């Protein structure tokens, strides 16, 4: 597998959605290519950062309008 092949399989690799033989080729390439190793690590890190990010608090005005809408509409059902 060359660098382009690794790029195409990065997502499948980090999702574990990859054939055993392709995975072997992928990992074999990484052993000899620092460039691709860094890219794979950074893509993993990118996913982790978004995954782990806590949502911020709702702005007060947004929250007020949400609960007002729920209070009015749900009680009328």
């Amino acid at each position, binding site marked *: 597998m060359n*660098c*382009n092949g690794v*790029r*195409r399989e*990065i*997502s*499948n690799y*980090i*999702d*574990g959605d990859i054939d055993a033989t392709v995975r072997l080729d992928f990992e074999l390439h990484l052993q000899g290519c620092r*460039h691709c190793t*860094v*890219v794979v690590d*950074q*893509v*993993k*890190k*990118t*996913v*982790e*950062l*978004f*995954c*782990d*990010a*806590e*949502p*911020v*608090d*709702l702005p007060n005005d*947004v*929250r007020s*309008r*949400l*609960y007002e*809408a*729920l*209070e009015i*509409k*749900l*009680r009328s*059902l």
Partner: protein
Amino acid sequence: MQCATFMTGENGKGFAGRMAGAATGLPTRPHRDTFMSTNPHRIPSTVAKEDEHLLVAAAKGGDLSAFNELVSRYERKIFRLTMNITRNREDAEDAMQDAFLKSYSHLKDFAGDSRFYTWLVRIAANEALMRLRKRRPNQFSLDEPIPGENEELIPRDIEDWGPSPEQRYGQTEMHEILSTAIDELEPGFRTVFVLRDVEGLSTEETAKIVGISVAAVKSRLLRGRLRLREKLDRYFRRGGLH
């Protein structure tokens, strides 16, 4: 890799808080006091999971305070989802409101074979996508190929990110970086990335919601992840933006 950290109790403000002590008799935010000492917004996922089916059952029976507890628990995550898809605050707010209202009126259709939150995400994603399509009908179509979708993205200039980015940036600064990066992503890539990697939906569920094939979801997820890596690289490489 899939995001599996989403099952948190959310904050205690709002309607549910005002209605506390009403009809359900269900536990609301057990252990919250002790947990608040470290993080005011999270309760252990097991606690959220344990009482969720009770809250859903009570809400199905017409108990508004139980439903409002569910709203309170997930409001921040649902707003983040609708914001991430629409990137427009007004649309995100409308989509969130309608998602909660629809989830209540269709609660009888919730079979309980998935988590309530996952079911809610599907409703909210549909509401957000509807608004996104409406606002920008001529700019893009989520179910058509995206320019550059089939191009190989070969990063040429690779540099190690050095110490962990989380250690180099504060929470607020990191939030801004992630928000800017996702804001710049094409809607077709962004939507798939958000549903798969932030919300943890399966490839098949994502395909169904967006209205594209499983192969297109995989392709867009790959491109979305690679493009986000590139965007974050501006900040995280040594000597990057500060």
